[in-house]
C-alpha cells in the first residue's frame, strides 16, 4: 500500500510522518545490522580494518560486533572455511536468531580460493548455508566490504513482510535449522545441503 509521494512530502511539511509498517521496520533493521565477531583467516584482518577509524563501518550502523551468535544479525564468513571448521560455522549459523544474513567475504569463503585444490578446504560455504552477498577478492579491500554492506542494506530494504516473496524468516514452512555436516570416512557428509546448493549446470 504505497502512499502518494507528493502527499507524503506535503504532509511532511506539516510535521506529519506517513509511512508503512514495512518501511519503518526495514529502515530500522537495515541501519542496525549487528555482525558477529567471528574471524576465520586473512580476511578477518581486513574486516577489523573496516571497523577501525579510517573506514569506519559505524557509519552504516554495523560497528557493534557481538561475540554471541544469539545477539547477531549478520555473519561475515571472513576467510577460509576448512573441513574441520565447517560444522562449527553451520552450528553457529543455526544458533543465530532470524532474521539472519550471511556475507561470504573473499575467494576462500566463496569457492575455496587459492587453496581450492587442497584436501582440507571447503569449496564454498554456500554449500551448507544460504549466502546473501558474495564479495570476491583475496582479501577484499575494506571498501569492498562496505559495498557488501550497502548491498545487504538494499536487500533488507526491499524485503516484503507479506505476500509470496516474503523472506525465509517469515515463512513458517521454510527451513530454519540447517543440517550440520559431520566428518565422514573421506569427506564431510553430506557433501552439500541440496536445499541450499545444487551442482551448477554448465551450459555450453
Amino acid at each position, binding site marked *: 500500500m504505497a502512499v502518494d509521494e507528493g502527499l507524503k512530502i506535503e504532509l511532511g511539511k506539516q510535521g506529519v510522518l506517513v509511512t508503512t509498517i514495512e518501511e519503518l521496520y526495514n529502515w530500522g533493521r537495515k541501519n542496525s545490522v549487528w555482525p558477529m*565477531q*567471528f*574471524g*576465520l*583467516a*586473512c580476511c*578477518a*584482518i*581486513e574486516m*577489523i*580494518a573496516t571497523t*577501525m*577509524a*579510517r573506514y569506519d563501518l559505524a557509519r552504516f550502523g554495523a560497528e557493534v560486533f557481538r*561475540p554471541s551468535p544469539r545477539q547477531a544479525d549478520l555473519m561475515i564468513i571472513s*576467510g*577460509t572455511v*576448512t573441513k*574441520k*571448521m565447517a560444522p*562449527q560455522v553451520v552450528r*553457529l549459523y543455526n544458533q543465530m536468531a532470524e532474521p539472519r544474513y550471511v556475507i561470504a567475504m573473499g575467494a576462500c569463503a566463496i569457492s575455496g580460493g*587459492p*587453496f581450492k*585444490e*587442497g*584436501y*582440507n*578446504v571447503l569449496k564454498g560455504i554456500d554449500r551448507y548455508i544460504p549466502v546473501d552477498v558474495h564479495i570476491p577478492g*583475496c*582479501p577484499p*579491500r575494506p571498501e569492498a566490504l562496505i559495498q557488501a554492506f550497502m548491498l545487504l542494506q538494499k536487500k533488507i530494504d526491499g524485503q516484503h513482510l507479506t505476500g509470496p516473496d516474503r523472506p525465509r524468516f517469515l515463512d513458517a514452512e521454510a527451513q530454519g535449522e540447517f543440517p550440520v555436516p559431520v566428518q565422514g570416512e573421506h569427506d564431510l557428509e553430506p557433501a552439500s545441503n541440496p536445499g541450499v546448493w545444487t551442482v551448477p549446470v554448465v551450459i555450453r
Partner: protein
Amino acid sequence: MSTSGFVAEKDKREGWNRPPVIEPDGEGELLEVSMGPHHPSTHGVFRMDVALDGERVIRLKPVFGYLHRNHEKIAEGISYLGSMPFTDRLDYLCPLTNNWAYALAVEKLTGQAVPERAEYLRVIVGELTRVQNHASSIGFLIQEMGASGTPLMYAFKAREKILDLFEELTGARMMCNYMRFGGCRVDATADWLAVTRKVVEELPGFVDEFERLLRGNEILMARTQGVGILRPELAVNAGVTGPMLRASGVNYDIRKVDGYGVYNRFKFRVPLGDHWDVFDRFMIRLLEMRESIKILEQALKDIPGGPVMDAKAKLRGFRPKPGEAYGRIESPKGELGFYLISDGGPNPYRYRVRPPSLINLTVLEDMALGQNVADVVLIFGSVDIILGEVDR
C-alpha cells in the same frame, strides 16, 4: 570429584624447569571448558580445552587444525615461484617477511645473488612490517584485556599508513607478493622513498603516543605483571624464538646472529626482558618498534642505486640441483624458516615451514598453569600468533 583424564600428571620432563604441577584442592569438581574455536579472544580459529578448579587452570590442551589449508602439500605440486603468493597467506599480518624467508631459502638452494638495492628494499619493507605487526599485536593484546577498540584504533592508524606504502610499492595492501629469487619484483620510485621517509619520521611520535597511552596504565600493569611467566631455560628448550624469547631474557635475534641480508651494516640494539611475564612481552614489542625505526632511518639514508633484480636471476623453469636449503629470518613473530629439498625437478620435493607461531604456542600450557582463566586469554594474546601460520 571428577578425575576424567584431566588431573594433572606428574611432571616427567625433569630438568625442564617447568612451573610446579598444580593439584586440585580436592573441593568440588573440575570444570572442563572448551574455549573456541569461535571465541572472541582467540586470534582466529583455535581451541583450548581447559580444566578449571574454580578460577585456576589445572590443565590446558591446545587443539589445532581449524585453519589447516595444506600449504606445504600444495607447494610440493607447483613451481618454486608459484608458492610465493601462498607464503603471503601464512602469517597474514606480515606477508613481506614471509616472502623474504622463502626467497632466501630458494636463493640458498640455487646460489642466487641479490643486488644491494634489493637488499635494502627488503630491509625497509621488512622493518615496516615489524612495526605494524607489533603495533597491531599490542592492540589485540589490550583488546583481550577488555579495552575494546581504543588501543587497536591507535595501532591501526599507524598500520594504515604503512599499508598505504605497501600498496603504492607492490600493488596490494596485504598480500604483497613482492620478493623474487634474486631481488624484488618492482623498484621503489624516488617519490615512494620520500613518502616513506616522511612516514618513518612520524613513527617515533606514534610510538611515544602509544606508549604514553598504555605503559603507565594501572589496570594494564595489574593484569600483566607477574602473569604468564616463561622461564628462559624452558623457552630455550622448547625452541621459542622472537620477542617471546627475548622477553624471557635470552639474547637471540637472528638479525644479529645470522646477519642475513645487510643487517650487519645497521646499528640497533636488542631489548631484553627482565621479569619474563606478559608485561615484558608487551614492552619488548614497544622497544623493538623503536629499534626498527632506527634501522629504517639508516636504511633509507644509505639506500644505493642500481638494479633490484639480479641480471642472471631465473624465475621460471629453473631446476635446482638436488640438495637442500634452509633459509631463516627474524620475522616479527620469531624465527621463520623455510626448508626445501630439491630432487632436481621443477617443484620442491619437500617444502617445510618452520612457523614461529606454532612453536611459540607449545609453551602455552606451561605459562597458563595455575593462573586464572581470565589471564589465560591474556597469556595467549601475548604469544602473538596468527592461525594461518600455526595450522598452515
